């Protein structure tokens, strides 16, 4: 087997002994057809499980009554606000931190190497155990946070029982879990920057901050932008974290669009409302996807 590596030399492929066989008829040799054969499973998945549900979902979501109903629901309005807060704050804070952290991890110190080995654990652990752990820690009566607060003489805070702190912790958990992933993306992005640029800057006596702003950031800019768009779309559709951490409580004040749609459909039996809720999020999602498709090549 050839050992092709991404960096470093590409070895020539070894010759493989293959029994020569009769050539296939010309039409079957057409590249297009063969291309289709190899991508057929992919296309099937897309058509059957993405396109069809999407179209049928959108079709069912064309009922004006359900939009009237959800727009009239005070919970819906709060939900839209929550979703915007969640997406905007979580994504941006997370990516800024990821960018900075990726810089830290680039250093070959022992401490950073230890960190590099361990810091992906939140991402490796499934969301549910992490969320359960957070919930218990934030419990007002027997949670460790409040315990420490009272030890310091401060009063305990009902973290998950009020809208602001509950939403804040949805954001905090999101960052805790997904920061590692984006950090390595940025780390790789950094590694792709040729080191001569930094060496040249060192000759000119540039400081850390100067290096960052004049070399690193401009070259990572488009990666950063793409990551922002991607992360925003993912966060917009996030169901698991808000649902398991707060479940919408207290009083349906911490729903996001995905959890509210679930609630409408499965807790209240109003399928059309659920679909309409997603349909509301669709325009901006498609906008982001469109932007991404312009810039990213698969």
């Amino acid at each position, binding site marked *: 087997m050839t050992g092709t590596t991404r960096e470093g030399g590409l070895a020539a492929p070894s010759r493989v002994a293959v029994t020569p066989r009769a050539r296939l008829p010309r039409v079957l040799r057409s590249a297009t057809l063969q291309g289709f054969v190899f991508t057929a499973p992919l296309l099937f998945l897309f058509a059957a499980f993405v396109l069809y549900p999407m179209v049928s979902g959108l079709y069912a979501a064309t009922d004006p009554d359900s939009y009237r109903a959800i727009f009239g629901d005070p919970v819906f309005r709060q939900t839209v606000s929550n979703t915007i807060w969640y997406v905007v704050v979580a994504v941006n804070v997370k990516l800024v931190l990821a960018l900075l952290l990726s810089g830290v991890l680039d250093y070959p110190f022992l401490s950073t190497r230890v960190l590099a080995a361990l810091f992906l654990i939140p991402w490796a652990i499934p969301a549910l155990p992490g969320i359960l752990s957070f919930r218990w820690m934030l419990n007002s009566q027997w949670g460790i946070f409040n315990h420490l607060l009272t030890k310091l003489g401060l009063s305990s805070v009902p973290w998950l029982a009020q809208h602001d702190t509950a939403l804040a912790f949805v954001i905090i958990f999101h960052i805790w879990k997904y920061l590692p992933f984006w950090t390595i993306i940025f780390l790789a992005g950094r590694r792709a920057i040729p080191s001569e640029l930094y060496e040249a800057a060192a000759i000119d006596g540039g400081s850390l901050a100067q290096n960052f702003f004049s070399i690193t950031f401009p070259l990572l800019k488009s990666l950063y932008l793409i990551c922002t768009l991607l992360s925003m779309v993912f966060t917009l559709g996030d169901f698991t974290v808000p649902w398991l951490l707060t479940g919408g409580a207290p009083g*349906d004040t911490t729903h996001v669009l995905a959890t509210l749609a679930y609630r409408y459909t499965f807790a209240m039996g109003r399928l059309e409302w659920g679909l309409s809720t997603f349909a509301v999020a669709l325009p901006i999602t498609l906008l982001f996807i469109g932007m991404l498709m312009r810039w990213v090549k698969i």
Partner: protein
Amino acid sequence: MGQSRREFLKTTAIGAGAAGVVGFPAVARAQSGKLVVWWNKGYYPEEDIAMQKIVKEFEAKQKVEVDLSFTAQEDLLKKITAALIARRTPDVAFCFYNDWQVVPKYGWDDKLTDVSDVIKELKPRYNEKMLEVAYVWNNKTKKRAYYGVPIEAQTMHIHYWRDLLREAGMEDDPAKIPLKWDEYWGYWKKAQDVLRKKDPAKYGKLYGLGVTESTRASDTLYNFEMALLSFNGEILDKNGKIVADQPQNKKAIVDTLKWFGDIFTSGYVPPDATNWTDGDNNAGFHSRTLVMTPNPSQSIPAAQFFNKEDPEKKNYFDNMATIEWPDGPDGKKARYLSAVKTIIIPKDGKNQAKAKDFIKFVVEKDRFLEYIKAANGRWFPAFTDVAADPFWKEGHKGPKGQKDQHVPVATKIFLERDNKVFEHYKHPALSQVYDEFAYAKAISRIITDKWTADKAADEMIERMKAIFAQYK
């Protein structure tokens, strides 16, 4: 290099064409004659085992195969809802939430099978008060009928730690605790004060009133309705029309909300009670950070009964007791609400007749007695012959011959006190009001947002009227 718009549209068109071919929903598979039964997972393995036994007997007797599955109640409600939406339903479904959610809503939508014939046959055995829960309005046929078969019920009771009261030097015998409204609640407050003073290190975080006030717990709704009854308020009239806005009812609602707010802000209810899920007051009670807690089922004593770390069942027999809801502020004896658990037969099920046979089989006296006893007093049977069994009057016997302080209290409530079923059967809009935890939200307005009870009541009533108006 990215996609141009035209290419994207072309892509979509190709994809859509392929989707059209693939996406044809399959025709329903031929029914194999198997009876599909979805049953609520019991709290104790014995319950599920008892049900499995019943199913085996049914299979043997009727020569029909039964596909029985147990699902936890939240999950099951979602499953039933999903099945009714997708019109791929089981033949029989029993979920603890059927009475609050499924029967009123889907009876209205004509998605359930009329089981009036089954009810008629079983009527002589029924505790009449529990039947109403399934008598709902069908908006298609424009009349009421029985769309479920009630089988067992739960009601509100209050549990407390006798040993904590003893330690506070207070009377712990349930017969001797004052039942007048103010004195009753004051009793628990006093316990908190005394114990905290006595041993601040140990009881610093102890609370006297474990009253759930959270927007995430159905316990809150139960507590509210019970308190509202104590204040003589009504939400619906007998035809299912909203009467909450009538002056005397509105006053009762305001008083009730005020009462919830007062006990919370007075520091006798744990601050976390506004965020409790249904299990948190249980947990608080078991961890002895609550002197008492209202709970609408016997799950708390039952958990202690099965506590492996207490083999002599000291907690169940000696340290805990159950007591009734107090008399109202006007001195009248408490009126109770019972939540009656009901079996449904979805209309889209393929084996209606068999389903009815199955249900009748399950509720036959001896069989049902065995099943319901496996729940250890958590439920009270809807059938008078089953309820006549001495277990309900006496409960368990303690290892040293102690009397059961829990099961007989519940029995007394069902048989001797004024009780009625929840009113969801009157109008499915009430189910949505419950879905939105409207009462709990009003309480939260007072406690968290510091609104006046009047303002919170107004908002709540407005929202309720809006919900009711949607049902034409």
